[in-house]
């Protein structure tokens, strides 16, 4: 009886928590309003213990927190003034609820969630995986690498772990098994890759952390960017090394799996020469070959060159123009102003953190964003590149630009020299799947990080972009399908359904997150009223920990909590307890947030409640066991811990970008 054992274990833990609670409760004072300060503090700790038990029992957490918060807030107020207790409790409650309703950080949650559902339904993951798979055939363990890269991009855009793991479990997992990959390795790369979306911005986790801890979401996004990329690269590196050491785990692909089907024009031109670029120019002059098709291929071919050229021109302008027009002093001043404006804006964004009694409307952040956004929008494009240009104080182009130009020319020359017909075909596939999604992510993320738009604005435009993306992909699919004449009508009907489904799902997810936030903000208010926070603070400080020990302890506790709880609960309930302690140990809340986000990745991969494993099991063939999936996830969990250690040892990985951009 396996079930029994788990239940017994759970009940033992609960008993261990409840017994001291029952013993320590100041029963005699509880109902006669004579609670002393010390009694209240004890009551606060009891409340925390009880809430852990209630969560373990499985009651909807939002309402557990709300109910418990009301009760204990009443106890606290009653000990101060019994006559006003009910009034004060009710006031506290409604003000907390209203503060969440008018929270200008959390508002980005539904928008990003909506964008995620729309992108998920755009039906582009199949193309994305296929094109990346063909693009990466030469890499060892290519299918696993393609899986992780697809997951990273798709999960970043959608942020929905369950859907990404399920989709990749349907697409990549069978492909890997057919290619003779080891089951555990295949399962590990799907599950670990699918969870990247909660770390790499724009992620909802970081918004919720920002709202809880009062840290600017903009800075969190800037900070989480490189740690996220680092984790993805570590995964890829691990897979490549493993494939090199033990080729039997990930055998190279069969020739048939690697072959790229060329387009008709390419097929006629290919026998004449290996290089596609030369072949296409040649094809333009030859009779009997459709000119339009050749031109189309040619345009696709020169796109990388054009893109690099545009980038170079942009860099040239930003690097030289200010030096000619203004003196260096003016430049620095302008740069400072921009930085200040960005700072001010981000302060405005988190002006009303959930911590404060932000019940009244006047505490909503003032609208400086409206006026200030304009100068910010115009200026920052020059800001980041000014720093390297300014010290040189030369009118001509700075040296680094020449070096960059040289490197670009070399890269492009190499690229076009190796521009075979197969590569052209793969590039065209990437152009249709990888680049639109990457562009959407970069546009959303870039406009937030560089201060062109607030996270809310970027999220809304991103959701709109996701909608357009879904229309485009659905339409192209129908256009190429059998019923071309009805493509417009079919797409419209489908988009109606997609919009409806996405809206309903968004409403449910948002209600889940935000009601949890309502509950927890009432709960943490009660906790603070009772003085539980003070007791914990005094206790932690009495341990005499060094900052390093404190950090390890905190991350360890969060790691343990990640087993039974979901990330929403951990952040919303336990962060308010940790955050006030950070200042005592001189830990940057931004840095702490990055560590927490990285740490909570493990929550999805650690058995018994590893959501990712169950989603994969749900779509895997019957002979794949849960143990194989868990076994495959373990090395990736190890990598997550390595990444955590790396980030802790070199905080610059996370803090460099916010420092450069916002001068933290």
């Amino acid at each position, binding site marked *: 009886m396996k079930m029994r054992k788990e239940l017994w274990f759970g009940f033992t833990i609960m008993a261990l928590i409840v017994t001291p609670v029952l013993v320590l409760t100041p029963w005699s004072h509880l109902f006669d309003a004579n609670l002393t300060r010390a009694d209240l503090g004890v009551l606060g700790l009891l409340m925390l213990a009880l809430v852990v038990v209630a969560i373990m029992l499985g*009651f909807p957490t939002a309402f557990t927190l709300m109910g418990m918060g009301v009760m204990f807030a009443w106890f606290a107020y009653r000990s101060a003034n019994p006559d006003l207790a009910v009034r004060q409790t009710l006031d506290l409650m409604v003000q907390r609820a209203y503060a969440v*309703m008018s929270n200008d950080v959390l508002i980005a949650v539904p*928008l990003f969630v909506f964008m995620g559902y729309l992108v998920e339904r755009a039906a582009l993951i199949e193309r994305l995986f296929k094109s990346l798979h063909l693009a990466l055939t030469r890499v060892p363990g290519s299918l696993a690498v393609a899986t992780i890269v697809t997951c990273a991009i798709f999960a970043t855009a959608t942020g929905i772990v369950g859907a990404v793991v399920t989709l990749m479990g349907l697409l990549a997992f069978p492909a890997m098994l057919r290619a003779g990959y080891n089951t555990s390795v295949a399962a590990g790369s799907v599950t670990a890759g699918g969870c990247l979306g909660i770390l790499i911005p724009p992620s909802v986790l970081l918004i919720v952390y920002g709202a809880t801890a009062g840290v600017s979401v903009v800075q969190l996004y800037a900070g989480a960017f490189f740690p996220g990329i680092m984790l993805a690269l570590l995964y890829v590196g691990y897979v490549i090394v493993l494939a090199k050491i033990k080729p039997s785990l990930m055998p190279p692909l069969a020739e048939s799996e690697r072959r790229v089907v060329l387009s008709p024009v390419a097929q006629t031109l290919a026998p004449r020469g290996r290089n596609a670029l030369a072949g296409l120019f040649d094809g333009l002059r030859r009779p009997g070959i459709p000119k339009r098709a050749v031109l189309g291929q040619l345009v696709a071919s020169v796109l990388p060159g054009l893109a690099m050229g545009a980038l170079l021109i942009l860099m040239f302008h930003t690097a030289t123009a200010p030096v000619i027009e203004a003196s260096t002093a003016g430049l620095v001043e302008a740069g400072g102003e921009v930085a200040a404006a960005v700072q001010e804006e981000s302060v405005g964004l988190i002006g009303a953190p959930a911590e404060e009694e932000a019940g009244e*409307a006047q505490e909503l952040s003032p609208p400086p964003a409206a006026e200030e956004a304009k100068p910010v929008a115009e200026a920052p494009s020059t800001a980041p590149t000014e720093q390297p240009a300014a010290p040189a104080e030369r009118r001509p182009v700075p040296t680094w630009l020449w070096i960059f130009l040289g490197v670009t020319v070399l890269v492009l020359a190499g690229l076009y020299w190796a521009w075979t017909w197969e590569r052209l075909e793969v590039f065209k596939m990437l152009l249709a799947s990888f680049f639109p999604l990457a562009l959407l992510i970069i546009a959303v993320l870039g406009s937030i990080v560089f201060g062109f738009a607030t996270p809310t604005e970027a999220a*809304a435009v991103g959701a709109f972009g996701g909608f357009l993306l879904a229309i485009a992909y659905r339409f192209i699919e129908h256009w190429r399908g059998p019923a071309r004449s009805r493509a417009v009508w079919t797409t419209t009907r489908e988009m109606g359904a997609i919009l409806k489904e996405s809206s309903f799902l*968004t409403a449910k997810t948002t209600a*889940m997150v935000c009601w*949890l936030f309502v509950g927890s903000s009432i709960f943490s208010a009660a906790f603070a009223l009772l003085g539980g926070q003070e007791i914990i603070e005094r206790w932690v400080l009495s341990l005499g920990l060094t900052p390093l020990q404190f950090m390890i302890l905190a991350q360890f506790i969060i790691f343990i909590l990640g087993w039974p709880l979901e990330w929403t609960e951990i952040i919303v309930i336990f962060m308010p307890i940790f955050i006030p302690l950070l200042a005592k140990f001189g830990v940057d809340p931004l840095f702490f947030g990055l560590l927490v986000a990285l740490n909570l990745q493990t929550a999805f991969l650690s058995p018994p409640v590893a959501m990712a494993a169950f989603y994969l099991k749900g779509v895997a063939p019957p002979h794949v066991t849960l143990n194989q999936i868990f076994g495959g996830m373990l090395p990736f969990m190890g990598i997550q811990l390595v990444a955590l250690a790396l980030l802790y040892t070199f905080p610059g990985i996370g803090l460099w970008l916010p420092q450069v951009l916002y001068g933290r």
Partner: protein
Amino acid sequence: MAFFLRMQKTLLLVDKISTWVGHAFSWFIVALTLQVSWEVFSRYALDRPHSWAFDVMIMFYGTLFMMAGAYTLAKNGHVRGDVLYGYFAPRTQATIDLILYVVFFIPGVIALTYAGYYYAEESWRINEHSNVTAEGPPVYPFKTIIPVAGGFLLVQGIVEIIRCIICLKEGHWPSREQDVEEVDVDKLKEMVHVKDEDIRSIPAGSGASKKHGAA
């Protein structure tokens, strides 16, 4: 038996009302997306920002999630700590839920609704307007959302309590109405053109017997 069947119909009716309200307010996300996108366009491209944009944005968001609370409860969508709950027999689940609904949910939500009512009433009485900008839009309809959402939530909570009682008597959970799900495996299969036969025909990967793992 007949009583339970009649009861079941009433439960499903309340579910339907909560769902309908939730669905109706779900469209606010579309409105919010369009409004913010338009505001961005209007400000950057047309150079014509609107002073009320911020307030309207907040109101869309706040109304959206508050009014979807009962709908989410009706679909069992509020996050639960699923450590032990899944291992319990339905009767045990129902007992725990029943107790905690009465101890935590009912007092909490009644308090919220009651407090929200007076909060909104005061706002109506003083004709409160948003002071984010000089001539802010009225705030009282927005504050009225608190008691309204609380009321819907309370009714849905009572339905959930009755569900617990039915489960205690019958030994299994009464059914719920279907709704869109975040991970709808069948839909996802259709989207990527995978059929069940395909999954069954997948060969076992290499090294299925010798275990690869803890590196």
